[in-house]
């Protein structure tokens, strides 16, 4: 029998249903992998008992003939989702030890669907970062190594770096992620897995620690496109508790998966051809174009003229919202409280927030506070919102002549830990291809497409029209089938 931890979500679901193995066996196998992978630091909290309890329930449900859509599938939960009774930290000192008495809508849906939780996955602090180097609980390490014989520890991407690392290392078959400006897609690309950020509003934000409300969107990360479809079906749905939630039925994405792209047009945005970019990236992109043509699609060049303003606009809007969203962490009601001897309220705020937030979080709070300040608001925030509108219009116009857009997910393969931490701007540039779709609220996914000359995975990004996750998944599937990406990190941990 295949090793259980090598199975995909669909294989576990179907195999369990068919009685090939018990859910408890699956849970135990993954629990063992999690326990044996401390070196990756992918989890902040491990919850083997949660996974086992769900597995036992799944086995009982199978015996009773009451199987649920994801019975027997253990997953990882990004530690940005509030989990009832299980510490939820957003990888911050601020929320260290915080145990919510409520369950996020997305995680509740997954538990209702029969999933078990292997643990809470590490991430960049408050989801701010592109390399998972801002976590208060330490860096997450990618299971991948360069093929140069060196032993440099690589970044798993961020902010969903615990999710990406854990899936790539077979610690879980799938995990939740959140994507504000690429936080699902970029880490997926860095470790050779798939991940989709659905249309803004598909997944409820209720119970997810907020970073930038108008951009935050949950989505699944998994080893293949089909698993992403399955997971997303069980995460999405209208939630009256989230005023920005989409009141639309959840399509049966899995059932409608098709890699036949005849009659479809794929747009290639010329502005995404960056001067001086790694030639491996361009080569992968060209290969992707060929794959989609092979799947029957027509390929056209399109223009997204305001692309170059996307990153600056994003780094105004997201910090602006974050500066306000993170004001609630003040030491008054929950989480960290630093109350120096004889301190007043202002001193408590200052001490608590100085100690509770890491440098990147502070940087963004300060940027956000600055751009919203009297006298600067119009020059920054208002202007950025205009750019955002123009970027959304770029996409609308482009989608008049194509069904999906194909681009690289990130401008480079995974970099080494510490290589970019000294220069925040270089770090921010990593999101250059991911951010426009976030600003426009469009569904976008990353699928692994190739290895670069260092032997590291590269991802292709498919951006779709609003609500057309199906089109995105289908194009992703077409690439997946043709790229034949089977490489995996050799176990060293």
């Amino acid at each position, binding site marked *: 029998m295949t090793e259980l931890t090598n199975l995909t979500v669909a294989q576990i679901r179907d195999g369990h249903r068919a009685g090939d193995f018990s859910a408890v066996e699956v849970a135990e196998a993954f629990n063992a992998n999690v326990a044996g992978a401390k070196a990756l630091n992918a989890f902040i909290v491990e919850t083997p008992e949660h996974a086992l309890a769900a597995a036992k329930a799944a086995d009982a449900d199978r015996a009773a003939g009451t199987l649920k859509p994801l019975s027997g599938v253990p997953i990882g939960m990004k530690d940005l989702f509030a989990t009832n009774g299980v510490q939820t930290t957003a990888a911050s000192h601020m929320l260290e030890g915080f145990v919510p008495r409520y369950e996020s809508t997305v995680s509740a849906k997954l538990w209702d669907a029969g999933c078990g939780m292997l643990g809470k996955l590490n991430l960049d602090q408050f989801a701010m970062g592109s390399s998972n180097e801002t976590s208060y609980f330490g860096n997450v390490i990618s299971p991948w190594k360069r093929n140069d014989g060196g032993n440099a520890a690589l970044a798993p991407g961020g902010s969903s770096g615990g999710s990406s690392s854990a899936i790539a290392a077979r610690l879980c078959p799938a995990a939740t992620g959140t994507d504000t400006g690429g936080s699902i897609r970029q880490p997926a690309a860095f470790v050779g897995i798939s991940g989709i950020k659905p249309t803004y509003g598909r997944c409820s934000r*209720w119970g997810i620690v907020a970073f930038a409300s108008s951009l935050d969107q949950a989505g699944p990360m998994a080893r293949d496109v089909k698993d992403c479809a399955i997971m997303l079906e069980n995460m999405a749905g209208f939630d009256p508790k989230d005023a*920005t939630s989409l009141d639309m039925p959840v399509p049966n994405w899995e059932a409608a998966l098709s890699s036949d792209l005849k009659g479809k047009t794929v747009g290639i945005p010329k502005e995404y051809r960056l001067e001086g970019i790694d030639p491996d990236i361009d080569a992968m992109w060209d290969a992707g174009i060929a794959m989609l043509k092979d799947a029957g699609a027509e390929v056209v060049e399109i223009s997204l003229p305001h692309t170059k303003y996307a990153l600056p606009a994003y780094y105004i809007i997201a910090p602006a919202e974050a500066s306000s969203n993170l*004001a609630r962490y003040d030491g008054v009601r*929950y989480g960290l409280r630093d109350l120096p001897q004889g301190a007043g309220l202002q001193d408590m705020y200052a001490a608590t927030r100085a100690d509770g937030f890491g440098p990147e979080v502070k940087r963004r709070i300060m940027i956000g506070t600055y751009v919203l300040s009297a006298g600067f608001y119009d020059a920054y925030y208002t202007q950025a919102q205009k750019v955002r509108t123009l970027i959304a219009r770029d996409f609308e116009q482009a989608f008049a002549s194509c069904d999906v857009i194909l681009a690289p997910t990130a401008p480079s393969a995974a970099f080494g830990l510490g290589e970019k931490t000294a220069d925040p701007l270089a770090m921010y540039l990593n999101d250059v291809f991911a951010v426009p779709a976030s600003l426009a609220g469009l569904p976008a996914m990353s699928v692994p497409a190739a290895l670069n000359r260092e032997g590291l995975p590269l991802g292709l990004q498919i951006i779709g029209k609003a609500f057309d996750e199906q089109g995105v998944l289908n194009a992703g599937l077409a690439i997946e089938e043709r790229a034949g990406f089977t490489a995996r990190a050799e176990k060293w941990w």
Partner: protein
Amino acid sequence: MSDYRIKGETGEWEVVIGLEVHAQVTSNAKLFSGAATAFGAEPNTQVSLIDAAMPGMLPVPNRECIRQAVRTGMAIEAQINKWSRFDRKNYFYADLPQGYQISQLYHPLVGEGSLTIAADEKAGIPADKAIGVERIHVEQDAGKLMHDQHPTMSYVDLNRSGVALMEIVSRPDMRSPAEAGAYVRKLRSILRYVGSCDGNMEEGSMRADVNVSVRKPGDEFGTRTETKNVNSVRFVMAVIEGEAKRQVELIESGGTVVQETRLYDPDRNETRSMRSKEDAHDYRYFPDPDLLPLELDDAFLAECRASLPELPDAKRARYLAAGISPYNADVLTAEVEAARWFDTLLDAGAKPVAAANWVTSELFGALNRMGRDISDSPVSPAHAAELLGLVADGTISGTIAKQVFEKMLESGDAAGVIVERDGLKQTSDTGAIEAEIAKILTANADKVEQYKGGKEALFGFFVGQTMKAMQGKANPQVVNELLKKALG
């Protein structure tokens, strides 16, 4: 035009007043959470995860709160904005769990409107005056800090956190404390008619930020100060009076008024500076990204409009048209409960003028004596209508009516029952009356002489004696006629 002036050493000063009234929206649940809003609950028992700003919690607008604000806007004939938006007002304070208040700065729900304060000569308001309302927006209330629970720490009660408020911003159209007082009373009356706020200023359901400046008549507006959270009409007027005087004295002694926020101390009846413009917060307002813009459809607006009751001005006009005196019309329309009671009385068939006189004198007098509100009057409108009917058709006299009313208050019985039981029916039996008149004229022969000699004022004496002899039950008209006949 108000002629209210502050007399300074350099001449007369005019006072310019604008009010921002915060009115708590009457609704069972808070503006963005399902938590309850009852006043006086144990601390922190009406707090949802959202009100406490737990991580990942999101606001969802409460339809009823929006509806009430829209109805309020309609009641002052204001522009209702079908597209509005919520903004965050960012500042740190321990009673503000989110670290921001969700409010509406840029696109309020309700735009320009106005309300009219009635002429009141005695108060120096010579004619009806329209006071402009710039806008009404909805926003969250904050929690409450309690400083008296512990020697070194403050406690926080979040029961009020997230409760819906309407901020009703007037134009700087008022020129005297009396006008401001009349404005607050009128606004309170309208809110209570509409049912969008209970207007209870003691419980903090309504409080005003009072903006005051002074100028020489005809000059540009002066620099204003804002006194926060004033919670009674009397205090609003006191703040204006005191603040205007302070400003005049300051200017005349060579100082300048600084734009600042002040606090009112009712015990010492004075305001003191809280913070000046220089250290004012930078609230970093921006659109709340957790909320979509609020879009109102025509059906919603139609329902809001259809649900509005008759408002004070319309009611007052109707009463005046029915012949009720302006004074009585004012008294009857001031409080919605009284107006409703009075309308029920009219519906039961009472004649408007007599009913108005009776309610404002007899009923209010009795309620006042008993310390009761009209909403728990021991006499129902139906019983009152019956009583007034007995007077109108001559069954009992006005004097007897007072006795019957007292008995109604004591027993709760209907007027007709009391009149029948106690034999209080007015008599027009000329024989009985004539017999009593004859006795009285005989017994008072001297006075009859004087009357005949031209002292006509004695006629009232004979009427009084006759009524007394008849135990008040004689029909006064009949008594008059018979006396005139008997006295030749």
